[in-house]
């Protein structure tokens, strides 16, 4: 998994409560054989005026000019500001996959749905809970100034605004450790690579017929 230490990027305000996973990535895109490539269909129904189909080239589809991420000033957004209960609905891991593929590295909201919150950490995406009043303030600042960037510092557990104001957030120690070091389950297991190799060497001695047989 990709590490998350510190990130600075353009912030965009998605001013809508209860954004569910079907809104984040509609069900017709789940048939894909990939975990990557969902970016063009992120927020498909909000983003485009037509109905999206799998395997369609999104470049020529009519964009909804009112949707925030379609506006010129928010191109290149990597920090998403959202409202309460973001990511509710189904457990599809395709939701964080789509956000990640689009280029979003952190989502800031007053609250998240549980499963979505968990799924983010498995995919190198940082969900940040800030008090409602602070989220409100960020929404106002973002809308007021074009090119507004936020810095998210996981080590220090703060979100820093362009004026230098810092908002502290909470994060579980174990998850923080995994994100800082880019460790997913595989990464954690590979920390024990020496033990695996030692076991394998023993096994090769004891049961040599299990090696190099399948060709």
């Amino acid at each position, binding site marked *: *998994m990709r590490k998350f230490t510190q990130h600075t990027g353009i912030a965009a305000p998605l001013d809508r409560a209860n954004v569910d996973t079907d809104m984040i990535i509609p069900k017709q895109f789940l*048939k894909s*054989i*990939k*975990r*990557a490539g969902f970016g063009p269909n992120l927020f498909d129904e909000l983003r485009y005026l037509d109905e999206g189909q799998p395997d369609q080239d999104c470049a020529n589809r009519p964009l909804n000019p009112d949707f925030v991420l379609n506006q010129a000033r928010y191109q290149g957004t990597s920090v998403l500001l959202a409202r309460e209960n973001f990511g509710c609905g189904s457990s599809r891991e395709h939701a964080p996959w789509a956000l990640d593929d689009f280029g979003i590295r952190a989502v800031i909201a007053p609250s998240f749905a549980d499963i979505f919150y968990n799924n983010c950490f*498995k995919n190198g995406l940082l969900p940040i809970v800030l008090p409602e009043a602070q989220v409100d303030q960020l929404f106002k600042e973002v809308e007021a100034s074009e090119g507004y960037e936020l810095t998210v510092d996981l080590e220090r557990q703060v979100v820093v605004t362009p004026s230098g104001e810092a908002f502290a957030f909470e994060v579980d120690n174990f998850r923080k450790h995994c994100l800082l070091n880019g460790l997913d*389950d*595989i990464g954690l*297991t*590979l920390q*024990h*690579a020496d*033990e*695996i190799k030692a*076991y*394998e060497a023993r*096994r090769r001695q*004891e*049961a*040599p*017929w*299990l*090696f*190099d*047989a*399948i*060709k």
Partner: protein
Amino acid sequence: MAAKTLYDKLWDAHLVRQNEDGSALIYIDRQILHEVTSPQAFEGLRLAGRKPWRIDANLATPDHNVPTTERAGGVDEIVDPVSRIQVKTLDANCDEFGITEFKMNDQRQGIVHVVGPEQGMTLPGTTVVCGDSHTSTHGAFGALAHGIGTSEVEHVLATQCLIAKKMKNMLVRVDGELGAGVTAKDVVLHIIGVIGTAGGTGYAIEFGGSAIRSISMEGRMTICNMAIEAGARVGLVAVDDTTIEYFRGRPFSPSAEQWDAAAAAWKELVSDEGAQFDTVVEIKAEEIQPQVTWGTSPEMVAPINALVPNPDAESDPVKADGIRRALQYMGLEADQKITDIQLDRVFIGSCTNSRIEDLRAAAEVVKGRKVAANVKQALVVPGSGLVKAQAEAEGLDKVFIEAGLEWREPGCSMCLAMNPDKLGQGEHCASTSNRNFEGRQGFGGRTHLVSPAMAAAAAVTGHFTDVRELMQ
């Protein structure tokens, strides 16, 4: 040293590391890959810039999505675009990572759980995983085998290990002699009827006793295949001479020089005298009759000569309700005779019952008879290209075709309706597969699980029939 169960021995022999939180790192000797649950795992490897830890531990073959009709045109002629892409993706991933694959038109292609043992990929004392819950099948050989999810497929590819927690031990002992016409499928359906679909949850079930010892390797696979339908991710049978003999001369079996050492090691793969099981279930072989499921869960099963249950006779209101709902879905009346259930289709195949002995048993029943007029379709789908070739060498294909059954190419076929073989709404099917859930074989389809011989008897009579009557 304390006496150990077979499961304890297999667990201990694969323990790489015990973590403080109770989880453990278990070494995986063998992984089988198919087209449906592997694409995101390979994609994950690519995105993280990882390589498989050990290529020679993996074998792949497409099975769930492949058409079972004429397919000489190759992958490009698979009609359903989603299926075609999945099969092509498996091919491309295996080529890219150097993993051995039996592609769709390779004679060794087939259902993952048929192919693994047939090739000697699965061996006694190994750990075997696959992104498919019926991986329990391989436990028949004294291997620790279970299904895993896509993220775990990736984990095994990348690390050759799995993060796991130890299960509890259950022994299901079947003693005595099975009657004529009573097969391994009837044994396992009967067991599920006794312990229920959640009876094995959290357990590794070892099947033992004199009746199990007398069953062939193929029959033992049928039994372990359905351990998962009793809730147990792992089914096991201890190694004996039948097990060891099975592996002589298989492509991935130990070489001649390695054979004696391997066979000696395999002989240890039995539960020790006095080993402690958390639960023991005892079953008398003589009590087992040919079985038919009447409901929408494998535990909703009855002997062929019984009546469909009456919910009013059930004292537990939750169960009574379950029976009512199942009868409604299945379009059956309480107290009707099982033998009066009329069939629309018959399916002989799936990882439960598509091996050569299964096909022989079915052929014996249909030989010289004809598929009944009310049966619209009766499919025979061998589990692998090699099973198909063997059956053809024995002339079984001709027996089936003459009787009016269709002889198909290997794959999962009507077991799960992910390919063109499906039930229509409301149709009753006598099926040798393993799941009778609502919609499993097609939207609104009604599945009855039976043995190959019972499916064959249903095909030629048009309704469920005690196969023993046809054997006289």
